[in-house]
């Protein structure tokens, strides 16, 4: 804004010229979109570039996750372009901000579809975001959509492919491991939205099948930060495994109160399946010592898998700083999604939606963060390796790995 003391005392009118200037400026800003980035290939070709659209939360509450997704896309598109593009055509990357806000998102996604006419859209982090934008992409937009984040499963819309882990992938190996390592009496404190409800529904079955017992399952408002009643319930009922899906901002204070009540001292253990490198800093390391998580990637996997090590090193070189390549933010799902789509386009030989979808239905990649991955034919979900890790002194140790690729068991 440019008005200030100079205007004071003057009549509150605006000259026509200034009005026009401002209108033009505003229109320009709206048309180009303040939260839009276009990254063009640095080589030209006779063929039209392929347009990849990313719609993710660059700003707002989960901006850290969205930026990790966008970084991964930038890194991969640069790689692909450096290697000659796909089908001899370079890739233009178009990134739109969904701003952690569904109503903003729908408008921005429409820009990708209607104005830019992208060939594929990847993105969305929360399930509510996916539900808000999928119609604009898949149904009205007649475009492919790839959703990268771990979620509750059950998204079976045609032309919508999911590359993050489902409850089956996060529980089938993990919960038996917890029980084998001494967990018996489970508490399932959870945030009150769809993912924890669905995850707990699945987890409860696996717990009971594997010989554990669910002492209580309880849901809290998403912004609750005071957990004394819950902690007391855990302590008095002799729970020895808190398997929680409470989210930030509550999860930090919850773990702290639990620790202060003497839960860890008495031998109680924690498990939280979205915990990755981004969430390690919410608590002091001693408060979450021994916390177990199960995801498709942890940074510690670089010691197991040379391909993961290479990808991680490249990411760290291009994007040093606070935005990490982590599984909980969907960044690893974004990697798989883009690479699987690349493989599918190469197989299809063109960008026709049906042809690419048909090829994507059984696409495979041999390398990615965490290892190889492949789509389960007819399911539009992705098989991947899963790792169980335990927090130790502010880092993760990998303590178990799935033998092969774990099935998403959905759709």
């Amino acid at each position, binding site marked *: 804004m440019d008005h200030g003391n100079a205007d004071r005392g003057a009549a509150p009118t605006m000259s026509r010229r200034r009005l026009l200037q401002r209108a033009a400026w505003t229109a320009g800003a709206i048309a180009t979109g303040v939260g839009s980035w276009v990254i063009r290939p640095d080589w030209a070709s006779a063929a039209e570039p392929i347009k990849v659209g990313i719609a993710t939360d660059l700003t707002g509450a989960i901006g850290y996750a969205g930026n990790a997704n966008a970084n991964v896309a930038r890194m991969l598109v640069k790689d692909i372009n450096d290697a000659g593009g796909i089908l001899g055509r370079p890739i233009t990357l178009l990134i739109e901000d969904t701003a952690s806000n569904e109503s903003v998102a729908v408008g921005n996604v429409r820009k990708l579809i209607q104005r830019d006419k992208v060939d594929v859209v990847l993105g969305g982090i929360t399930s509510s975001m996916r539900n808000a934008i999928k119609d604009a992409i898949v149904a009205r937009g007649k475009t492919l959509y790839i959703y990268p984040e771990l979620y509750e499963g059950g998204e079976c819309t045609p032309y919508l492919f999911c590359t993050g882990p489902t409850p089956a992938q996060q529980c089938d190996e993990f919960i038996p491991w917890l029980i084998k390592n001494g967990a018996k009496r489970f508490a399932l404190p959870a945030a009150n939205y769809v993912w924890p409800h669905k995850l707990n529904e699945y987890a409860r079955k696996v717990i009971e099948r594997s010989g554990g017992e669910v002492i209580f399952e309880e849901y809290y408002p998403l912004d609750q930060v005071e957990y004394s009643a819950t902690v*007391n319930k855990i302590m008095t009922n002799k729970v020895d495994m808190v398997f929680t899906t409470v989210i930030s901002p509550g999860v930090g204070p919850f773990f702290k109160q639990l620790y202060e009540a003497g839960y860890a001292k008495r031998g109680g253990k924690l498990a939280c399946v979205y915990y990755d490198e981004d969430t390690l800093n919410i608590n002091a390391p001693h408060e979450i010592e021994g916390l177990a998580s199960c995801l498709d990637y942890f940074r510690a996997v670089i010691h197991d898998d040379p391909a993961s090590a290479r990808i991680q090193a490249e990411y760290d070189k291009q994007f040093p700083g606070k935005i990490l390549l982590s599984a909980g933010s969907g960044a690893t799902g974004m990697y798989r999604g883009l690479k699987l789509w690349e493989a599918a386009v190469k197989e299809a030989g063109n960008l026709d939606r049906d042809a690419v979808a048909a090829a994507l239905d059984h696409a495979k990649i041999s390398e990615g963060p965490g290892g190889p991955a492949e789509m389960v034919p007819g399911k539009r979900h992705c098989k991947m390796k899963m790792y169980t890790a335990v927090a130790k002194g502010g880092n993760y140790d990998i303590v178990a790995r799935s033998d092969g690729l774990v099935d998403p068991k959905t759709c």
Partner: protein
Amino acid sequence: MESALNAIFDVLSFGAIIVLVVLGLGVIASMMGIFNFAHGEFVLLGAYTTYLVHSAGLPVWAGMLAAPFVVAAFGLVIERLVIRRFYAAPIAAMVGTYALGLVIRESVRGLIGGLYLFVPEPIVGSLSIAGVQVSQWRLAIVIITALVMVGSYLLLTRTSFGLRVRAALENPSLARASGISTSAIYAITFAFGAALAGLAGALVVPVFSLFADLGIRFLIQGFLAVMLGGVGTFEGPVAGGAAIGVMSAALPWAVAPVLADVLVFVIAIVFVKLRPGGLIAGGRV
């Protein structure tokens, strides 16, 4: 028995946290008639200052000491630049301070990368009192809150500064005629409210960790507390804060947590309906 004692301490300590957060909000609302929607962000700034000082390698308590002064200075600048234009228009003040809060919140979000970061307590560990595990830091917060409350009360009711503040509020023209600079008094009062917010942020950040929405989390509860307690007195918002804090922490012991969250609001609204002036209605300090 043990569990009951546990409950009492936990409920008390959360009540103290809410009181601490509400204190500055109440001072500004009661003394100046301004509903400061950026109050939550002042709390956030206090927390952020503590984090910055700590990450610079200095002890946490140094950050906690610095926070009220940093936020007071910030509040003073804001009052001179923005708030003083709003005294005649309380509704515009709400919108204006909300916008201000938004700018602060999103700036801090950018600075911390949107993450949740832990800040250690200056006093770590828990005490065992009569078989009950009591977090030492939460106990410290209860004690500091009590001291700050008494200190603020004495400042506003027993000192000549407090007298001038009340005079400037009650009858600005007469105060000015008596040689009191109301403009300076307002600026100092606002800075004082901001300092209390900064202190609250500094003290609670080890409990809740640092994140951009730390302040807004407490804003709604804060306003509810001021409404419940009644505007115009010092004790009103404090009592309201205690009531809201205690209810928020105590109800989940009795009913499902999702229901408890709603019940706090229902109880507060019903109460205000029956007693529109709030818990402590009436005159000024």
